């Protein structure tokens, strides 16, 4: 089928991004916006904007009934969920199916398979992927036995958790019984799912992910991205290809990701996340994200493939029309997430009105944003205001290009984290490449210490 009118069940820069691809494809766009976003940039850019509910996300962007009702009323033939909100919600995918609306994403079954951490892990084992040693436990006896086998320290993880929530680290067996009980009751309270599993605690590693595209039959990969620069499980800087990975490991990881996608007969754009040990000689499956990701422009820069366009073509039922050997990774790309937060004040969120905004432009520079002078940054949603992406022949040039781009990125009216990006880009450890996920926390502590010392003198 041919999609003629597409509903965007999202907001912010990704809504603008989807509208841009739709324009090129000649598809009409309908934005489902909350009351807080009715005068936003995507609301103005879309061919039509309908209100899906009040500002609070639970009653608008996260309300399957409201979103589907709005999409039906607007008479669309497809719905793009973007990322976050309902992007990986099987109930939305199913409700779309029932309403005769094409869901631009995987099947509900695939969403369920990767959304349940234990099911996702089982698929990984079945597809022959290495996983961090561990498994589900339902009793203290089972936990004791399993922990003894995998070795201490361990993590107790809630099946329904994620993004750093529902994790408990235990260094020895002393309190296993009490902690297990607590983890189970907390998991029930926080996620409505009491199931937990154990994993060996891997103290340090890199977060590397492989981009996949599948059409429900064929699955290919589009290289990898390194997203190790994180703070509290929130990615800050992403780059691709992951710097300084042994070629053999990179190829094995790509093959593993494709094997995972094939096992699910995956349809759409998706990402398989891996934990790579800092020595760079082993990797473990973490999870699969069944959606377009924030950092997808990194892959678009180094492969030249428009991932949103591909998502739409796959949703229309077209075969991939791209063979693995046609995917050429060229050069190096880096993305910096510009967030409205005050780094100097403990990363305090900074909603408000943007009084002035200037973004960099030029060869090898891309900015994905939904803000301009006069835009409001509402307090209800995440703090991302722009993504600055650069592409160059190699990593050294990309770093230089990013420094130049950031110098031309000026946002006033709300605090932004640009100074932190500048600091990281000039840090020798980051410039060497291959930092682990603890890197930023370490650097922040060191910088805070240095500032405190400087303030005393």
């Amino acid at each position, binding site marked *: 089928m041919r999609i003629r009118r597409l509903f965007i069940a999202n907001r912010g820069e990704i809504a603008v991004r989807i509208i841009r691809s739709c324009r090129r494809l000649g598809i009409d766009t309908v934005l489902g916006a909350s009351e807080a976003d009715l005068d936003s940039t995507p609301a103005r850019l879309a061919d039509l904007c309908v209100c899906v509910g009040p*500002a609070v996300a639970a009653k608008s962007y996260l309300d399957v009934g409201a979103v589907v009702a709005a999409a039906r009323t607007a008479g669309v033939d497809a719905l793009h969920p973007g990322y976050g909100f309902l992007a990986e919600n099987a109930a939305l995918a199913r409700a779309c199916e029932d309403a005769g609306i094409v869901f631009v994403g995987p099947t509900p079954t695939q969403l369920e398979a990767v959304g349940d951490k234990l099911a996702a892990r089982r698929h990984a084992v079945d597809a022959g992927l290495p996983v961090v040693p561990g498994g589900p436990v339902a009793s203290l006896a089972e936990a004791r036995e399993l922990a003894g086998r995998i070795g201490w320290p361990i993590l107790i993880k809630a099946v329904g958790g994620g993004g750093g929530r529902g994790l408990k680290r235990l260094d020895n067996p002393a309190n296993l019984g009490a902690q297990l009980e607590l983890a189970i009751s907390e998991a029930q*309270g926080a996620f409505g799912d009491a199931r937990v599993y154990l994993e060996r605690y891997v103290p340090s590693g890199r977060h590397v992910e492989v981009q996949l595209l599948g059409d429900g039959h064929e699955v290919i990969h589009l290289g990898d991205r390194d997203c190790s620069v994180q703070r509290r499980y929130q990615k800050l800087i992403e780059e691709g290809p992951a710097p300084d990975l042994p070629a053999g490991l990179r190829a094995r990881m790509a093959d593993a990701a494709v094997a995972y996608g094939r096992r699910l007969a995956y349809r759409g754009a998706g990402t398989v996340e891996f934990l790579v040990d800092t020595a760079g000689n082993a990797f473990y499956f973490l999870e699969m994200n069944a959606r377009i990701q924030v950092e997808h422009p990194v892959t678009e820069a180094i492969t030249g493939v428009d991932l949103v366009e591909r998502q739409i073509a796959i949703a229309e039922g077209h075969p991939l029309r791209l063979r693995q050997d046609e995917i050429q990774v060229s050069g190096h790309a880096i993305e910096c997430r510009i967030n409205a937060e005050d780094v100097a004040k403990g990363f*305090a969120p900074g*909603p408000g009105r943007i009084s002035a905004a200037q973004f960099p432009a030029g060869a090898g520079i891309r900015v994905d944003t939904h803000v301009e002078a006069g835009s409001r940054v509402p*307090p*209800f*949603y*995440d703090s991302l205001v722009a993504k600055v992406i650069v592409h160059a022949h190699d990593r050294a040039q990309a770093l230089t290009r990013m420094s130049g781009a950031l110098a031309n990125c000026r946002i006033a009216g709300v605090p932004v984290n640009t100074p932190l990006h500048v600091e990281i880009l000039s840090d020798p450890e980051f410039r060497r490449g291959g930092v682990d996920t603890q890197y930023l926390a370490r650097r922040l502590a060191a910088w805070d210490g240095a500032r405190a010392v400087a303030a005393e003198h």
Partner: protein
Amino acid sequence: MLTHEDIQDILRVLETSPFDELELETDRFKLTLRRAAGPQGGWSQEHETHARAAAAVAAPTTAGSGVAKSPPPVTAALAGAVLVEIRAPLIGTFYRAPKPGAAPFVEVGAVVSSDTVVAILETMKLMTPVHAGASGRVVEICIADGQFVEQHQVLLRLEPSQP
């Protein structure tokens, strides 16, 4: 609702006006300002919030139910002591409990110290704890759970403990 600053501003305007009394009524509050008769002049003020007055009447039935879509703010009799206002450190959604269904951080009557967490504010998906900032007894919770608040809006009032 009017903030203390708002009332100060109105007072400043009235200070230079020829009127002796001002009554300001909206559907949310009623404010009466009267020039005192004493030789030193000055103002007395009556500030009544309709929602709060309603809450005081309804308190026995709604207290702790948590079922109503937007439960009225909780209050206790104000004894005329100088109350400490706990204000929102930033704009956000006010939550009385650490997570849905959990017990509130504090109820009216709770004794708190300056570092007691009395509420959380959710701003841009981040949770910011609100500390009491002073020790005392909670006499009023001005905001209903889940309600959106502006920066510096009064969230709770404390009767400070005697030094």
